[in-house]
């Protein structure tokens, strides 16, 4: 039987995730030190795990409302108001989802008609373009570069706008570059969005993980933006809860209602165990989160210094837990560099091209790994760089 003819053309033609591709290459190798992960190296703080266990002990094993537990939404509303300075009504403007990924999918499906264009900055997280395509939209990447420290350049954004432009997706701090959008840049982007009547999805998943000492600003908090912005956030990165698969979005109630319609047909609700763990994280997870952030901060400073010492050009990323060093001067493509580093020195880092073509010449290296392993990885990478220079 020819299974191929049963498969959807749209999905078959969609490229595989570059991360996934690289993962398959690593799968066979033993004893590798991985800088290729995209998650914290901490176990979820105990008080949060304990809340999840207690939830199970109490026998909380049911569905919840499609909107999730009201107590979770109230906790989210309080947290978002204090952290981002934007107020949302927990009864109709907040939807807990299975990670930010689900929220992005729901939002795009609710916003796009076929042919509508979605602008986002590149290099960026691997799911944006495919999710736009699955929602029948047209993905319009705007390239960013080291000259803007990988923040979206407002002039380039404006140049990419067409009459079909409907949505702008932002992700600061950015996976994979760790970049931050300076406040003046965000202000200009906001003005452009108001002027051209564009709706914004802002993926704030790394917003607690900033090391530049500047209070994080979401575009949702800028004048005139709350009404045209969906703020997406979750628990995975700041609270080390990737496996709980819990995220949420906050925005105009008309959009939230449509998103909940799809959510009620496809996902129903995030696991109740995760929702109750999430409440504990928001209420009592701050100090553990700050400990983890400070620990990433130390590691960021170390790895960036080592990378520059070994001859890679690496900017100091303001947030997330990624560095994005340039390997241009070694005359290898990102993929060749990453493959040889893996084969010859057993260090895994993701080629920048996994996050868009303008990631060529770069590597994504995650420093959410034990310090002693970072030291070893840096020693190995330094030897590799020396061998390339020779």
């Amino acid at each position, binding site marked *: 039987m020819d299974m191929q003819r049963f498969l959807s053309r749209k999905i078959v033609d969609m490229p595989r995730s570059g991360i996934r591709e690289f993962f398959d290459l690593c799968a066979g190798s033993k004893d590798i030190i991985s800088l290729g*992960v995209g998650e914290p190296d901490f176990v979820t703080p105990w008080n949060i795990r304990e809340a999840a266990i207690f939830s199970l002990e109490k026998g909380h094993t049911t569905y919840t409302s499609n909107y999730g537990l009201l107590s979770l939404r109230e906790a989210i509303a309080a947290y978002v108001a204090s952290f981002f300075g934007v107020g949302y009504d927990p009864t109709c403007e907040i939807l807990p989802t299975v990670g930010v990924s689900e929220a992005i999918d729901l939002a795009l499906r609710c916003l796009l008609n076929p042919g509508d264009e979605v602008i986002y900055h590149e290099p960026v997280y691997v799911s944006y373009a495919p999710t736009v395509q699955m929602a029948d939209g047209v993905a319009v990447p705007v390239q960013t570069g080291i000259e803007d420290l990988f923040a979206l350049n407002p002039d380039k954004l404006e140049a990419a706008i067409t009459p079909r432009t409907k949505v702008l997706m932002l992700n600061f701090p950015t996976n994979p570059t760790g970049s931050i959008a300076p406040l003046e840049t965000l202000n200009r982007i906001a003005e452009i969005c108001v002027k051209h009547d564009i709706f914004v999805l802002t993926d704030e998943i790394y917003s607690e993980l900033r090391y530049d000492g500047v209070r994080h600003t979401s575009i949702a908090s800028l004048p005139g933006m709350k009404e045209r912005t969906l703020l997406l956030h979750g628990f995975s990165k700041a609270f080390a809860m990737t496996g709980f698969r819990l995220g949420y979005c906050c925005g105009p109630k008309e959009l939230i209602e449509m998103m909940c319609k799809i959510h009620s047909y496809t996902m129903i609700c995030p696991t109740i165990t995760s929702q109750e763990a999430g409440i504990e994280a928001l209420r009592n997870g701050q100090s553990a989160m700050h400990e983890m952030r400070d620990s990433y901060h*130390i590691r960021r400073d170390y790895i960036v210094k080592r990378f520059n010492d070994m001859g890679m050009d690496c900017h100091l990323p303001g947030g997330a837990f990624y560095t994005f060093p340039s390997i241009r001067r070694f005359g290898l493509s990102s993929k060749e560099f990453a493959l040889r580093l893996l084969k010859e020195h057993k260090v895994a880092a993701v080629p920048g091209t996994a996050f868009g073509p303008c990631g060529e010449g770069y590597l994504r290296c995650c420093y959410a790994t034990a310090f002693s392993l970072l030291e070893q990885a840096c020693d190995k990478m330094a030897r590799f760089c020396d061998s390339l220079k020779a």
Partner: protein
Amino acid sequence: MLRDSLLKLLAADARLSDRQLADRLNVSASDIAAERAALEKEGRIVGYQAIVNDDDDFVSAFIEVRCTPERGGGFNRLASRIARFDEVKSCFLISGNFDLLVMVEAKSLMGVARFVSEKLSTMEGVLSTSTQFRLKTYKNNGLSFEEEDAPERISVAP
């Protein structure tokens, strides 16, 4: 600032070299050496020890001691007299129903018993003692004594 960060790192792992500490805190190794020396001189860093799982090697007891405070010195003189015994591993002044919590370690149960009956309870000022023996250590100095395997992360992830 450097001081707080240094103490935090050393409290977690005292074996880190000055070089490693310098890498983590983005300062020079000589800065670390100077700060460490200052901390030692001031008595903020009292010592560097291994955390040993000695449940099978020693008998330990937590002894609640009630005593009479002295005019002028309070509990200090008596507490430091008690603390000087080699058998005493820790000694704290405690609020509540008793005054001093003394942790005593000996090779055998009889060793602890002898220490309590011959040394501790006969000291002038000690009103009463109540001895609790350690049966098993689960966590000490912030370290879990029951080895848990670190969960495995997949090597390349989003």
